[in-house]
Every structure is written in structure tokens, then in C-alpha cells.
């Protein structure tokens, strides 16, 4: 056995490094280094490139604690993200179930294509196309006015619902695809066995399918929740004057006032909060299993 596993040179570590090395180098260069630079920035009093003097300080993190504005926006962003994640999961599960267990063959491929399609279009284009649909006199308005005998003006554009719609559209594929993967892994014979022993549809769903699909759904929820907390494009373009969230405020620090240290500190506070929430969530879900 030992012969079979070791390389001709007889050094498995070297072989492992040559295989995994590029990936780790890439992670180091593309993820770890920029992040550490940003972490360093968050402790600086000023951006060094602006020519002024700078020193190390905790002030940027204290600003977050001192200013009720940032706390308020953080809570608002977390609320938005929870809402979007819930909607994505609820909408995504039946869709994934149909794909995995009900539909077969050609039509499944076509449906898959429809789900992946948003990934192929530019995010900005997706948001702008919602503008056409949601605005007063847009597609939604037009359809409703043709179906409804009295004039209606939905005008969803530039509102909180518009932000939620745009974000759900962007992140639904994650929820569907991750739930699909774990649903597909469920052996059909398990379901048949449950049925043969007299379990009703709801019981099968509750006791068998949902628990087995849970890891995939959780992964999808995490993939949605984390980026939505910091989202800034959708709130800015679809939310109008109601589109101020922690993501847009961080963007402003970087783009509008060149206050990278505060922007970085806010980003890392957000990261810490999100990690804490995920950690607690994982703990709770594990305890439930026992």
C-alpha cells in the first residue's frame, strides 16, 4: 500500500505541494494579502497616499460604536438580508424539488438553463432591466392596467420592495442550485420505502426530505445572506432615496470622501458580525440535531 501511495520520488509532501501549491498561492495572493492590507488600513488614522501623516489608531472602530447611524444601518442591512434569504429559500426549495425529483430529461435541462441564465448577464444590466419593469408606466403597470378595469399606479420603483425584488432575483439561483444538489443526492428508494410503510406526503417532506436537504439549503442561505448584508448596487439603483444601507455607506467612504480607514473598519465590523451570526446559527442547528 505504501508503495502505491508514494510518488516515484518517494516524497508525498512534495507531490502534494506541487498539486495544491498553485491553489494555495492563489488564495494567498488574491484573498489573504488584499484582506490583510485592508485590515491594516482599518487601524490607520489617514490614508498614506494622500500625503498626510498617519498613525495607528482604534478610532475607526470606536466611530462605529459612537455613531448610532452606523448601528442603525447595520441592523437595517441585517434585516434586509434576513428577509431576502428567507424569500430565496422559500421560493428556491420547491423549484429545486421539482428539478431534482419531478421533472426529467429535456425539460429539466431547459429549466436549468433558465435558472443559470441570470449568472450569464451582467449584474448591472439585471438591475437596470428591473427599472423598466417596476417603474410607473412600466411593464407591471401596463399589464395591471390592461387586466384591471380601474386605473392603477403600482410604481414599485425606488422603494424597499424594489430592493428586495432585485436582490431575490440576483441570489435565487444560489438557493435553487444548492438545494438541488442535496435533494438529488436523496435516494429515491428511501422515499419509496417511507411511502410503502404508510408515510403521508407531508410526513415524508417533514421527516425525510427536509432534514436531508437541510445542508444544501443552509449552504444556499449562507451564500445569499453574506453578500446581501453588504450589497450596495441594488439599494442604490432600485431604492432611490430609501436606498441607504451599510453597503452604500461603506462605498461612500471609499469613493466619495477617500476615507479608506473608516470604510475598512466598517467592512471588518460587518464581517465580524456576519461571522458571529453564522457561528451562532451553526451552533443552534447542531444542538437541535441532538
Amino acid at each position: 500500500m505504501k508503495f502505491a501511495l508514494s510518488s516515484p520520488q518517494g516524497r508525498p509532501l512534495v507531490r502534494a505541494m506541487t498539486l495544491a501549491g498553485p491553489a494555495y498561492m492563489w488564495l494567498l495572493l488574491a484573498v489573504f494579502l488584499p484582506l490583510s492590507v485592508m485590515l491594516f488600513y482599518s487601524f490607520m488614522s489617514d490614508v498614506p497616499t494622500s500625503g498626510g501623516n498617519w498613525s495607528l489608531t482604534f478610532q475607526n472602530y470606536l466611530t462605529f460604536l459612537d455613531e448610532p447611524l452606523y448601528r442603525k444601518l447595520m441592523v437595517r442591512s441585517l434585516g434586509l438580508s434576513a428577509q431576502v434569504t428567507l424569500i430565496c429559500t422559500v421560493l428556491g426549495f420547491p423549484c429545486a424539488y421539482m428539478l431534482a425529483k419531478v421533472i426529467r430529461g429535456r425539460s429539466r435541462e431547459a429549466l436549468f438553463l433558465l435558472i443559470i441564465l441570470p449568472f450569464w448577464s451582467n449584474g448591472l444590466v439585471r438591475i437596470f432591466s428591473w427599472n423598466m419593469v417596476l417603474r410607473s408606466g412600466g411593464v407591471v403597470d401596463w399589464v395591471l392596467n390592461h387586466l384591471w378595469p380601474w386605473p392603477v399606479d403600482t410604481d414599485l420603483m425606488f422603494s424597499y420592495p424594489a430592493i428586495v425584488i432585485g436582490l431575490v432575483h440576483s441570489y435565487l439561483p444560489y438557493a435553487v442550485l444548492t438545494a438541488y444538489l442535496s435533494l438529488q443526492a436523496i435516494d429515491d428508494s428511501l422515499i419509496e420505502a417511507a411511502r410503502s410503510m404508510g408515510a403521508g406526503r407531508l410526513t415524508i417532506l417533514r421527516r425525510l426530505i427536509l432534514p436531508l436537504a437541510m445542508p444544501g439549503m443552509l449552504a444556499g442561505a449562507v451564500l445569499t445572506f453574506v453578500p446581501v448584508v453588504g450589497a450596495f448596487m441594488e439599494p442604490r439603483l432600485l431604492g432611490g432615496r430609501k436606498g441607504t444601507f451599510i453597503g452604500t455607506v461603506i462605498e461612500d467612504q471609499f469613493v466619495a470622501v477617500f476615507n479608506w480607514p473608516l470604510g475598512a473598519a466598517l467592512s471588518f465590523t460587518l464581517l465580524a458580525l456576519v461571522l458571529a451570526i453564522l457561528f451562532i446559527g451553526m451552533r443552534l442547528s447542531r444542538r437541535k440535531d441532538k
Partner: protein
Amino acid sequence: MALIDKVVKRALTCVMATAVLASFAAHAEDVHVLNWKGYGTDEPWALKEFEARTGYHVVNDFFNSEQEMLTKLRTNPGAYDVVMVNSAFNQQAREQNLLQPVDVNGMPNVADLDPKMRHSHLLEIGGQSYGIPWVWGVTSFAVNDTKIHPVPDTIQALWDPAYKGHVGMRDDAIEAVQFAALATDQNINDIKNLDAVKSKLKALTSQLKTFWSSENDWNQYVASGVFYVSTYWSGSAARARNKFNLPVTFVIPKEGAIGWLDSLSIPKGAHNVNGAKAFINYMIDPGFYTQWDSRVGAPVSANTKAVAALPAAAFNRAVLANPAVQSRIQFQEPITDDKRRAYLQLWQEIKAQAD
């Protein structure tokens, strides 16, 4: 023979590659210009005319914010020959050692510049010019003529409850604060009562439909009837009327308006100073300016002869060049980083309260 042939070929390719690289690095006849996109210096007809006249080929690069412009100058010394700097940012650029004084010898059009702007304390330090005033304009508001009649003469029109839900403004902290300063009878460069500004802005955000962020945005919102009245820039309002046939009137209210002055400077370490001077001189030339204004729509030239060469009815000549109007305009002074951050925070607080 074959070997020699190979060597010669290799050598030739090397020489050519070096030549290509060198031409990328510094082509003596190129003038590298850094400016906003679509803002005069990149008009193809103008570049053709300039090249035919002087032999210099213009290469444009663009920035999306003043901070990006400063960063590009800092990180690429020698890459640009001409840079467009808003006069309120000239001091900052100068203090960071990014600009060199412009020797105006051989720039005949400089003599025709409005002396107030030519010798502005923002651009001329110790008798040396760190920026040649190029164009100036006004940030105020414009109304949709089909929705609002007669055209109001007061800035309070933005706060008029009759237009609630049809008011637009730009999502820019400094512009917002300065508008509110005008509406509360304050000096935009020396705001004493920030609380009054805050409550005035709070009232304004509940009037808003949304923020606009580009000319294209603005034109669409007006055309689709979303905006009845919205903050805007004078040059852009001229373009909206001339180029896009929108029924808009730009208003300089009795409370005053925010003025800005854009200047052209030569960065420190520029490779082609002579080309830069020729290009700046061309940019303030009456011939270029009248074409720019009639073909595209431009802000007001700092060259008095260029403004005088416009048709008598042109907005830039008839309204903005009028001394009575000019006396109401408050020109923007440099803003310290602390003030900038304070304004942004105030603005974010107000936006976060929008229900």
C-alpha cells in the same frame, strides 16, 4: 546562412518590440490628457482639428471622481501632460506636489481670459499660475416647462409641497449641504448654522422621488415625467435642451447658486510641456469653444472673447455672462477633509431617516 538569417530576424524583432514599447512609454508628439469622460477634451472633431493645426496627437484618459484624479496623478508621475482640476481641488493637488506652474508665454489666448478667474486666488499663487481657467458653470436647478408654469425664481421651489414626489437631486453630500445653505441664506463656503441646513435637507428628502447620478439619468427622469424640478448643472441643462430637445429651463434663483470653475493644469514631471501648453491654449480658443457649445453644449468659457463669439441668444452669453446674474453666484472654495467627512455623515444620517 540559415543561422545568420535567424539571428538577424531575432534581432530585428527585438528592436521592433523595443521601439513599440518606447512609443508606449513616451511618444514625443503625444499629449496625454486626464479629464472626465465626454467633457470637451475628447471631442473627436476637436482632436482632429488640433492635430491638423499643431501636429500633436491627443490621448485621453478619464477619472470618475476628483479623488481618482488625484490618485492617478500620485501613482503615475509623468504619465499625463494635461489634467483637468476643479479649482476647489487645485490647492490640494498643489500641496501634494502634483502640479507645476504654467509658463503662459506662447499661449496667446490666455490674455483674453476673464481677469478675475485668471488671477483667482485658487489658481494663482505668488504670481505663478498653477491652473489655466477653462470653463465655469453653475449648479442650480432646472424645471420641466410642461409641468411647472411660470418658471419659479426661488430655490424654495424644490421644497414646494405641490411638487412632492417629483423632485430630484444628486446623491452628493457637498452639493446637498450647499443647496440647503443657499436655501437658508448662508454662505456656501462658510456655513455657520449646520442645524438649519440639516432640518432643511430633512424636509427636502421627503420631497424626493429619487437621486440622479448622470446626465443620462436626469434626461430620462425628465422625459418620463418623474422629475418636475431637479437640481442640475448649467452646461448639462444646455445639452438637455439643444441635443435632446427636452422642455427644461435652468433657473438661477434669487437666493443665488453654486458656481464652480474648472481649470487645466500641467502635472509635475509631464513629458510634453510644449504640447500641453498648445492643447490648453486650444481649449480656451474661441473657435473651439463656439463649436463645442453649438454642437454639444458646454459650460461658460473663461475666455471673454469666446463667450462674446456665441450667438446673442445663447444661454451662456445671455444669462450667465450677465453681471447681475454673476453677482448672485457663490463660487466653491476648497473644502477640508474634516468638513467633507462631516458633511457626508450629516447627509448619510438624513438619508438613513428617509421613511
